[in-house]
C-alpha cells in the first residue's frame, strides 16, 4: 500500500491528469467533495491533497511515501527526502525583477530584496557574491520596489503578466521550476518495487504526452 501526497491548487489538475494517463483509478480525485483521503480504484494506493509545504513535511516524516510538489517548495525546504523525478509539468521560473532603472546586479551599496522565498534568494545572491538584505513578504511582492521598500524582488514567474502590469522587468533567471516526485528515505528501501512501478508508469505517460 502506497500513500501519495499531492499538492493542492496549481499543480493538482495536471498531476491528476498525468496519473489518469498512467492508467491509475483517480475518479475520486476528480470528484472530490469534502473527502481528504482518496483511494485509487485500481491500485493499492491512497492519495491525499495537501498544501505544498505540508507535502514535503508528510513525506519527510514518512506519513506519505511519495509526494508531488513544485521545485520552488523543495528549494525552500531542508532536503530530508529523495527527489527522484522531474514530471515536467507546472513549469515556471524564479526570476530577479525590478523597475527598469533598478538593476541591483550593478548597484553599489546596500541592497534590499523582497521575496516570499528567502532560502532561494540567499543562495542565489551568495552564488553571485553579493551581500544583500532579504525582506520576507507574504503576498503581492511586486509592490515592494514600487513603494520603495526593496530594490528588487525574487519571485516565481509563470507568464510575466503581473510584472508587466506593474512596470517591472526581469533582470535574471534564478532557476527553472517544475513539479518533482519526492520519496521518503525509508519507503524508498522498504517499498522499492511499488515505488519503481509508479515511477515507470509516470515516465511512460510523460513520454506519450508532450507537455511543453
Amino acid at each position: 500500500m502506497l500513500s501519495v501526497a499531492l499538492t493542492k491548487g496549481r499543480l493538482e489538475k495536471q498531476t491528476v491528469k498525468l496519473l489518469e494517463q498512467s492508467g491509475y483509478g483517480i475518479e475520486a480525485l476528480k470528484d472530490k467533495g469534502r473527502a481528504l483521503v482518496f483511494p485509487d480504484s485500481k491500485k493499492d494506493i491512497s492519495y491525499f491533497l495537501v498544501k505544498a509545504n505540508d507535502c514535503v513535511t508528510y513525506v519527510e516524516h514518512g506519513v506519505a511515501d511519495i509526494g508531488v510538489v513544485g521545485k520552488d517548495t523543495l528549494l525552500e525546504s531542508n532536503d530530508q527526502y529523495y527527489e527522484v523525478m522531474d514530471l515536467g509539468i507546472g513549469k515556471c521560473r524564479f526570476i530577479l525583477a525590478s523597475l527598469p532603472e533598478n538593476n541591483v546586479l550593478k548597484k553599489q551599496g546596500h541592497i534590499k530584496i523582497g521575496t516570499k522565498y528567502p532560502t532561494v534568494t540567499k543562495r542565489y545572491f551568495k552564488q553571485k557574491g553579493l551581500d544583500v538584505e532579504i525582506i520576507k513578504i507574504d503576498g503581492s511582492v511586486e509592490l515592494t520596489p514600487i513603494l520603495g521598500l526593496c530594490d528588487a524582488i525574487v519571485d516565481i514567474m509563470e507568464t510575466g503578466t503581473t510584472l508587466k502590469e506593474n512596470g517591472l522587468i526581469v533582470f535574471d533567471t534564478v532557476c527553472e521550476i517544475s513539479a518533482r516526485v519526492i520519496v521518503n528515505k525509508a519507503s524508498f528501501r522498504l517499498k522499492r518495487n511499488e515505488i519503481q512501478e509508479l515511477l515507470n508508469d509516470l515516465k511512460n505517460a510523460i513520454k506519450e504526452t508532450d507537455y511543453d
Partner: protein
Amino acid sequence: MVEFTTPPGTRDLIRQECVDKRFLEQHFRNVFTRWGYEEVMTPMLEYYQTFSIANMKEKEVYKILDASNRIVTLRGDMTIPISRVVATKFKDSPLPLRFQYCANVFKVKERLSGNQNESTDCGVELYGVDEPIGDLEILVCALDALSILEGCQYTLEIGNRNFFYNACTALSLEKSAVEKLADYINRKSLKELQDYVDELAISEEHKHFFKQLPWLCGDLSTIAEARSIAFNKSLHAILDELESLCHQLKELGYEQQISIDLSKLPRMEYYTGIIFDAYAEGIGDSILSGGRYDQLTQRFGKNISAIGFAIRLDALATLLHHTPTQKTVTLSYPTSMQTEALKQAQKLRETTVVKLLTDNTIKQIQIKEEA
C-alpha cells in the same frame, strides 16, 4: 512573561515514553554486553577542537565558552570522544578493544523541522580488528541487536563509501565536482544529477556510472548489477569484498534482513570503508547507522583500525512499545495508621510495587491490585 518551555529540538519524556525508551536501552545494553563490549562514559562537554579535528560541521555543533574562554561543545556524537579515549588512554593496550555506550548527543538541526537537537545514541565501537573480519563481526552484532524488531519490516542496508570516492579519484575529478556529485547522489536528486553529469568532461561510460549509481540499491542481486558499470579493478574489488561479506551473512541466516546500497555516502567525513544504515517501516529516517573509520584515532595520536555503529533510541522508541509486567498494588490507609501502613508496605515491596494513598474515609488498611 517567562515561558516555561524547553529549547527548540529538545523534549520532556514522561510515563510510557520513558518506559519504552529504557526498555530498549536495557535490551541493547544486554546484547552488547553479551558480545563483550565494556561500557565507557565520557563527559557531555568536550573541547571544540576534538570535534573540529574530526570535521564535524561547524554549524551543527553547540558551542559554549568556558571560564578560561576556550570553546567547548556539547558532544555531537560518541564515536569521536571514544576514539579520543582509545588513542590516548589505551594507546599501549592490547587490541582488540570493545566499547559500548548509551548517551545523549547534541546536534543543531534546522528549526521546526521536527528533528531533535538532543537525542540518545546507543552503540558500540570495535578497535583493532581490520576489514573484512571486523566488518562481518560488527554487522552481525547490529543484526543481533535489531532482532528486537521481529514482526516489523526492517532492513540493514550495506554500502561502501569507496565505491563512489574511488571512481572520482580514478577520474581525477576536482574537489568541488566531487562535492556536487555527492550531494546530488545523496539526495537522489536525479534531475540535477543528470544535468550536472552531462556537463562534466568525462567519457560516456563514466557519465553512465554516475547516472546509474543512485539506482544501485536493493537486494543482493544489486552487486551483480553494479558489475556492469564498475569501470576499473578497484571498483570490482569493492564489489568482491561486499559479495563475500553478503555471502557470509546469508550463511548466517540474515539474507532477508540485509540489502545493498552502493550509492550510500557517509554522514560523517571520517568513514573510510563499509557504511551501513538500518531502516524500519514507519520511521522516516535511519534507525541505526555506522561504518568503518580507520583513520580517526590517528588524528588523536595513535593509528588503530575501527568500526562501529549507533542506534537512534528515540526513533525506535516510537515504534516499539513495552508493557511492564511488574505487579502493582495501591495501599490505602487512614492518617492515624500511617506507621502500620509503612510497615505492611515494606513487606509487600519485596514482591510488588506499592503506591501509598491516604484515605480518611476508611477505618482499616486496604490493599488493591492495579489493573
